[in-house]
């Protein structure tokens, strides 16, 4: 592997108020290699990528790209040099069409400066075909898409630019198995063409499936670069956390007491096109997972249970009693919590503090009349920050300054704090590192043991297989199969999901 070096950083440092995000970092990326960057939440991965792609300027250090020393003042300059980045958080304009998003900043125009929509649509369609994206029309607006479809558009946009170095910051965090496979295929093809890829992910299986080299960061420092072929996930993880980790999570199955009534019973639920005649039950202490391909209607199903999307037919019973849920407010009042997917769009209050973000859904329990009891609120937030090991300098920091995984943990805390009877989780560990995932699984497990009913959507199959008691496979809005966890595996699930 003696290909020429494409990118070289020399002692790059970056400090934010209260945190040294990067500390004298050296990194070498060769031409045509897939180079994975791993590290715990808050290790500095996104910060490094933001520096490479011209979003932030480093405080110290130098960078050589393609044989020349470079200093980017603006992402556009990095793009012109051939560095393209897919950001961790979605950056699409939501009320604009897919194709305009893909070609943003370089809309195809005719002689008179009018945008040539037809040409653009054709090019966009060709791009999607080439990449293997199905089910998205170039003229749809972004807000009509699901979070994972948005992610695919984001990827397509990056691929439509001619890149020498493509940076992907957790591109698969909201993708299911099938789309992940498609993406990995594309990356392999790019590598053949001599494009280098910097690939950030918390999913070790992907990192090992795709990368040539793995660089580990910890607390803003460079730890080591390993050849993928010569290392193992365990070695990488222990380098990430800085110690041997021994315990792995194992669920404590509590048997559902016979004769127990289901906490949630859904009968004949229909909502729009996406949810058709769904029946399902969740018993106290049970974790039920919903799987399926993107677009199978999992998110729509839980959103209609929670009162976000209107239901067109069907009944919902809680503890045997029929309930009317017309808004999330009703649902919360009944003891239901929904952690939604897509934290940037549906989750975070960017300019508000970590404390305010954590307490938002349970705020009424911190109010006497209309007045807030701020001490009590701060204590509760503090408790969850330490329980979930949310990495922040203090509670009053604006949440937008937290790393992606830590934002996710804060939003999970928001819903745990409401102490629900029925907890619905839509991609709960989106962007969360390996260690924190185990912590979260333990918390979920403990809730189940306490008798909370849990409905889980996750695109990560290992997560589903470790946590769930029962797995429901959805296909085009219907429940296509139900598998007890003992009988479920990748193949059987895919068979029902696609049949």
């Amino acid at each position, binding site marked *: 592997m003696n290909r020429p070096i494409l990118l070289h950083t020399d002692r790059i440092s970056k400090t934010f108020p209260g945190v040294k995000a990067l500390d004298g970092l050296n990194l070498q990326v060769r031409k045509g290699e897939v180079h994975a960057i791993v590290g715990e939440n808050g290790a500095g991965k996104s910060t490094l990528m933001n520096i490479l792609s011209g979003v932030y300027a480093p405080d110290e250090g130098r960078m050589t790209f393609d044989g020349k020393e470079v200093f980017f003042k603006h992402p556009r300059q990095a793009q012109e040099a051939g560095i393209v980045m897919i950001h961790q958080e979605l950056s699409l304009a939501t009320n604009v069409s897919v194709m305009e998003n893909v070609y943003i900043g370089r809309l195809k125009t005719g002689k008179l400066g009018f945008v040539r929509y037809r040409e653009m649509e054709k090019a966009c369609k060709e791009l999607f075909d080439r990449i293997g994206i199905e089910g998205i029309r170039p003229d749809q607006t972004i807000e009509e898409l699901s979070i994972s479809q948005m992610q695919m558009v984001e990827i397509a946009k990056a691929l439509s630019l001619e890149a020498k170095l493509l940076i992907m910051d957790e591109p698969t965090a909201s993708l299911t198995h099938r789309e992940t496979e498609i993406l990995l295929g594309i990356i392999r093809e790019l590598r053949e063409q001599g494009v280098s890829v910097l690939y950030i992910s918390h999913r070790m299986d992907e990192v090992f499936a795709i990368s040539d080299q793995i660089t580990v960061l910890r607390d803003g420092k460079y730890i080591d670069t390993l050849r993928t072929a010569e290392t193992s996930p365990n070695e990488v993880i222990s380098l990430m956390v800085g110690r041997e980790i021994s315990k792995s999570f194992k669920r404590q199955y509590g048997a559902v007491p016979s004769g127990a009534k289901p906490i949630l019973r859904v009968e004949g639920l229909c909502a729009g096109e996406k949810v058709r005649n769904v029946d399902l039950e969740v018993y106290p202490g049970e974790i039920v997972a919903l799987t399926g391909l993107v677009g199978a209607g999992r998110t729509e199903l839980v959103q209609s249970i929670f009162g976000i999307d209107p239901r067109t037919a069907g009944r919902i019973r809680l503890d045997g009693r029929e309930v009317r849920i017309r*808004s999330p407010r009703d*649902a919360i009042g009944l003891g239901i919590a929904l952690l939604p997917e897509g934290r940037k769009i549906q989750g975070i209050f960017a300019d*508000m503090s970590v404390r305010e973000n954590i307490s*938002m859904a349970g705020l009424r329990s911190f109010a006497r009349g209309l*007045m807030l009891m701020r001490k009590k609120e701060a204590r509760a937030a503090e408790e969850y920050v330490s329980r979930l090991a949310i990495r922040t300098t203090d509670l009053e920091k604006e949440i937008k300054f937290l790393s992606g995984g830590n934002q996710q943990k804060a939003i999970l805390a928001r819903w745990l704090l409401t102490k629900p009877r029925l907890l619905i989780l839509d991609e709960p560990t989106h962007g969360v590192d390996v260690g924190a995932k185990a912590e979260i699984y333990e918390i979920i497990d403990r809730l189940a043991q306490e008798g909370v009913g849990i409905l889980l959507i996750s695109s990560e199959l290992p997560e589903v297989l470790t946590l769930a008691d029962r797995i429901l496979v959805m296909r085009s809005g219907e429940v296509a199969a139900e598998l007890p966890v003992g009988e479920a595996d990748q193949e059987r699930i895919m068979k029902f999901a696609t049949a």
Partner: protein
Amino acid sequence: MQALVRLARQAGRQKEIPILAALLILCVVIAWMSPFFLTWQNIFNVFRQFSVIAILAVGEGLIIITGGIDLSVGALLGLMGVLGATLASLGWPAPAVFVATMAFGCAAGTLSGLLITKVRINPFIVTLGMMSVARGTSLLITGGMPISIDNGITYLGGGHIGNVPVSVIIMFIVAICGYVFTTRTLPGRNIYAIGNNERAAKLSGIPTDRMKIMVYVIMGALCALSGMIVSGTLDTAEPAAGTGYELDVIAAVVIGGASLSGGKGSIPGIVMGAAIMGVLRNGFVLLQVSAYWQVVTIGLVIIGAVAIDSIKNRSANA
């Protein structure tokens, strides 16, 4: 030591400090150019002048924090003054005039709020329409002529407690209430959440529509209060009173650190923003800047404040 770190951090987060600094610099400059600026008489004058802008800015601030806007404040102020004066001329006692005018203000706010949340019309358009409707109604009621008021209600605008004008006291009360509301109450927290991310707010169980209507109702009430103060100052209700106030008010809010994209802003900052506008206007008079230049300058100040906000936003999101 830790307490010290925390204190330093808190001070670093006080976004009002640059605004306060700007206000002080402005005062020093004007005081240096005109010795009259720092006389007691003029200081009370400045306070009285900007008290109405500050009261309105508190309401406008709440609206802008939710991500909305209200262009009708000046026109509503005029209309409310006229309505109050009309009731007074019918011989209503002052408390009744007060309550009824406040109720009119709340009703006008409810109407805007309902149009925005239930009919889903853009707040810019709704309040632009309201502005025209309110101004037209004032002219219809009065036939374009001022109504003179001979009623205790003028105490709000003309009265003094000791040396201090009542309107200034009202301003402080409104500001303190606004401060407590935004920092210590449940609905206050909710309006920031709505301005930050309305969808996430709804998913967190916040009754977003109700909260949005509420801020327009508060605005309506504050317009009524201001209308009575302005007409009380001169013992006359002018149908044209408050013309153009929306600009000063929105400028005060933006200078005070709120963002037109919502979710940000503090009441102390907003009141200081109003003070900056008041001092600026007073300075123009003292320094005998021509009225035409005043108009131009105020426009530039507004554009400048919004530009700073948008540049700040851009660098934060980059």
